[in-house]
């Protein structure tokens, strides 16, 4: 599965533009088929780790792959989005096509590798190596301000992850193994956990991205080519969430509980602040980028609620957001290819001349808001239910984010699709062609499937999430109590105030 994109990438580099497009498409489709085969053969409820491959490379390094349900789902997301990415850049990329396709296939290799790695350092290599192709994708094929965006992307993510490497060294020395499943069951001393947790957090928070280190994301998204944005939003952001669920929480449970307030605080600020920022954007891609930050904040808050609903919700939001934000970037890409601008004000009333496009755009807008029947609804509902169990205030603030989400997405849709056709060139745009149709239908089908029958996605992950919940059982109640404390006090205070009030009234 890792070999196919590598071969494809090498081949792409040496052939002409059209051949490179075909090779890339075929390679990604083969990957998709392999992914489906993997899914079908995945034994739900069976062993926690399946499809293990191991080869000793040398001391300190091991080539070890294997997946559990969580990794399986994220790999599926990756292989599903890749052919769409290739399709999205079919016509819009005209210079250095071979290199472009090669970079994308390498990205696919690395992303699958990240989710399948069973060795700590192998994970780090895949995690970091993704920087190089992405830097080139943004820098060579990006928009006008691409160089600034590429720098920012590269340096931000690099500084986050190097500290993680030091933490990894320490963990390996302490535990004496680089095997991820073993480490997930290893109990590190509680005070050391805090430092390790912060080092991991630095990396995953940047990747996620969490407020206030999210600022690289809007720049990178806006400047990247359409397919680059899809991959960034669809898969790369999920690496942060995957990191939390694979490393921070199971390996460092006590520190995770200890720092849960920090994650909650950052998530709450992120949900509200970035939603408000999204409201005033005039650039479509930037708006969607900020909405990604808001959605990811719900993921982090749900993860650190430490209960089954929270974990399931976080995973479903990640998968759903991968599809929906990818689809939204694709929607922007479709009209960007026609008019070459992302200014919202330059469009308007395109529902008149592009009715089919408007339908899909509406579907994905609704999915992003989290309407029942779409993928995000399931995730957000489960996630918020999980958060509510941990802290009602956090749940309250996060729900505000969903209302604001509805506001900015609907506002965006109104300005783009409805209203008068102010601009003649926008009014003259043709509707979608067959290539765009296929991509949209695939994404729409995925979104609706997840919304209507989420069981097929939840089932493979269930045992893993239950395991995670059990792993945290020893420490989680303490965290809950700690978090519930303020609200309990407030309740007590409120009750006391009410009594006092009653007493006061009685005195009258």
């Amino acid at each position, binding site marked *: 599965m890792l070999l196919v994109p590598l071969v494809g990438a090498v081949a792409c580099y040496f052939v002409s533009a059209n051949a490179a497009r075909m090779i890339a498409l075929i390679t990604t489709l083969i990957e998709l088929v392999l992914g489906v085969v993997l899914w079908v053969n995945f034994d739900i409820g069976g062993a926690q780790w399946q499809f293990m491959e191991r080869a000793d490379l040398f001391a300190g390094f091991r080539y070890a792959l294997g997946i559990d349900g969580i990794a399986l789902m994220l790999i599926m997301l990756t292989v599903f989005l890749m052919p769409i990415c290739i399709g999205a850049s079919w016509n819009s990329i005209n210079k250095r096509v071979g290199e472009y396709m090669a970079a994308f296939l390498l990205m696919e290799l690395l992303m699958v590798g990240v989710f399948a790695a069973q060795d700590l350092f192998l994970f780090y290599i895949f995690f*970091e190596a993704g920087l190089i192709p992405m830097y080139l994708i943004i820098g060579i094929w990006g928009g006008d301000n691409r160089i600034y965006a*590429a720098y920012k992307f*590269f340096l931000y993510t690099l500084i986050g992850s190097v500290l993680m490497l030091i933490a990894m060294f320490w963990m390996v020395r302490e535990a004496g193994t680089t095997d991820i499943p073993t480490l997930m069951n290893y109990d590190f001393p509680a005070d050391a956990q805090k430092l390790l947790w912060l080092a991991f957090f630095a990396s995953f928070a940047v990747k996620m991205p969490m407020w206030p280190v999210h600022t690289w994301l809007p720049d990178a998204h806006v400047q990247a080519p359409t397919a680059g944005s899809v991959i960034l939003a669809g898969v790369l952001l999920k690496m942060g969430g995957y990191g939390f669920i694979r490393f921070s929480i199971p390996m460092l449970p006590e520190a995770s509980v200890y720092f849960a307030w920090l994650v909650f605080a950052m998530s709450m600020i992120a949900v509200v602040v970035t939603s408000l920022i999204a409201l005033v954007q005039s650039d479509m891609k930037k708006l969607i980028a900020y909405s990604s930050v808001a959605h990811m904040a719900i993921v982090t808050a749900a993860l650190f609620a430490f209960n089954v609903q929270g974990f399931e919700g976080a995973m479903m939001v990640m998968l759903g957001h991968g599809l929906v934000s990818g689809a939204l970037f694709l929607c922007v890409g479709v009209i960007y290819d026609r008019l070459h601008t992302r200014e919202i004000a330059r469009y308007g009333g395109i529902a008149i001349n592009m009715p089919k496009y408007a339908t899909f755009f509406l579907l994905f807008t609704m999915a992003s808001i989290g309407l029942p029947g779409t993928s995000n609804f399931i995730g957000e509902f489960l996630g918020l239910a999980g958060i509510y169990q941990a802290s009602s205030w956090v749940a309250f603030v996060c729900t505000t984010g969903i209302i604001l989400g509805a506001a900015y997405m609907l506002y965006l849709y109104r300005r783009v699709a409805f209203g008068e056709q102010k601009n003649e060139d926008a009014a003259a745009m043709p509707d979608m062609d067959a290539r765009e149709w296929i991509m949209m239908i695939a994404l729409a089908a995925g979104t609706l499937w997840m919304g209507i029958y989420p069981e097929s996605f939840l089932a493979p992950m269930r045992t893993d999430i239950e395991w995670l919940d059990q792993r945290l059982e020893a420490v989680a109640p303490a965290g809950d109590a700690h978090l519930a404390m303020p609200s309990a006090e407030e309740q007590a205070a409120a009750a006391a105030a009410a009594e006092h009030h009653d007493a006061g009234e009685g005195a009258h």
Partner: protein
Amino acid sequence: MTDFSHSLALIVAEEVLTVVGLVLLLASAWLGDKASRGISIVAVAALVACAFLAAPTLAGGLMGPDRLAFGGQYIGDAFSAFAKILIYVSAAVTLIFAPNFLNRFVVNGQGAMRAEFPVLVLFAVVGMNLMVSAGDFMTLYIGLELNSLSAYVLAAFLRTDERSAEAGLKYFVLGALASGIILFGMSLTYGFAGSTDFMAVRGAMAGELATGAIFGLVFVLAGLAFKISAVPFHMWTPDVYEGAPTPVTTFFATAPKVAALALTMRVALGAFGGAVDAWQQIVIFVALASIIVGALGAIGQSNIKRLLAFSSINNIGFLLIGLAAATEQGAAAMLVYLFIYVFMSIAGFAVILMLRDVDGNPVEAIADLAGLSSVRPAMAWALLAVMFSLAGIPPLFGFYGKFVVFQAAVDADMIALAAIGIAASVIGAFYYIKVVKIAFFDEPSGRIVPETGPISHKIVLLVACLIISPLGYLLGPWLGGLTEKAAASLFLIG
């Protein structure tokens, strides 16, 4: 008498190189510069032969009293063999690069490549061999001076070029100062330890040190820091790198760095191995200062050779983190890093040497690299590999060097040092990706012509690039085994 013949057998590589060097010197005096090509070939052959002589010592992990020559003044152990092989490779590559570059400059109606060039390189190699095998401060000093004097001449080899002459003079004046500092430190150490033999010094300098002995130690280390161009003794590096002819710069960036660093390891862990507490703080400071100054200094550079000079200062900082750990694992990690660093440098300079402008002159300004990927894609990808490798981004092999060094530091409980060092490496990443940006994202400058370089350069570049590419990890087990043996021999208390 058997002792003497045993000693002579141990130093056979130095004997071969000295004799070949002297014979070639005579040949060049009689045959003149016409023979420079033949002399280069013989010199490269001698280097390759010596590399094969050193290989069994390394592979067998030979160490112990059997490998001492001349009463412990010379140590022919696996550690020295590892360093020597790297030195031979660097010197051979320099000789391969030199004729093509130097012959573009015309001096007195003929190319600047003269028959003395390979001879000087050979003598420098003999000096470096003595440095890495030194078991006594006298051997150390003789090797250091033999190497340095050859290097001063090499730096000024392009006689008609003012920059080259300036580089040679600057190198000489500052190098002489550093030699003086070392000599002063050695005399103080001798005064307090009563011997110049490393093992005797080690015995005498254990435990609480007298102030004078600490002075001696600091002066010796300061002088060595100059030779490896560690901050704060790095000022000569950018000027010398820029001024010296590019093949000579390649040489300076590789062989003498290996030799001086191996020597520093030998002195710090051997002679002063009993007084780790006395020098550990110094090394930590020098390491961090080198990383930070190397990274910040490089940002403003417009000449690629100066940039690589700061990059080498930066890399020396990472290497010294391995030394600061003062463990066998740290020493092995340094050797791995050195190996990778040598090939990264060779690949980087090979790219620079192969870039020419319309008139066939070498291109050195970073701005002229703009759009390299559309003019000479292969060169651009090689440059990309070098830059990302120097920045330590996986999956390139440069990452592995940093990986082992930082792992050694963390395992030696120096987590703060490792964390600061690795965070500072991000500053360095900035200018490395700047070079990639200029080569890949910018519009072509039109200065570089799509001319292909000589086949020998291409082969060297290809081999070096393969080593720094992810394929390099296949060398990992082999490299790990060799460096462990070499480090073990260094830590053997004779």
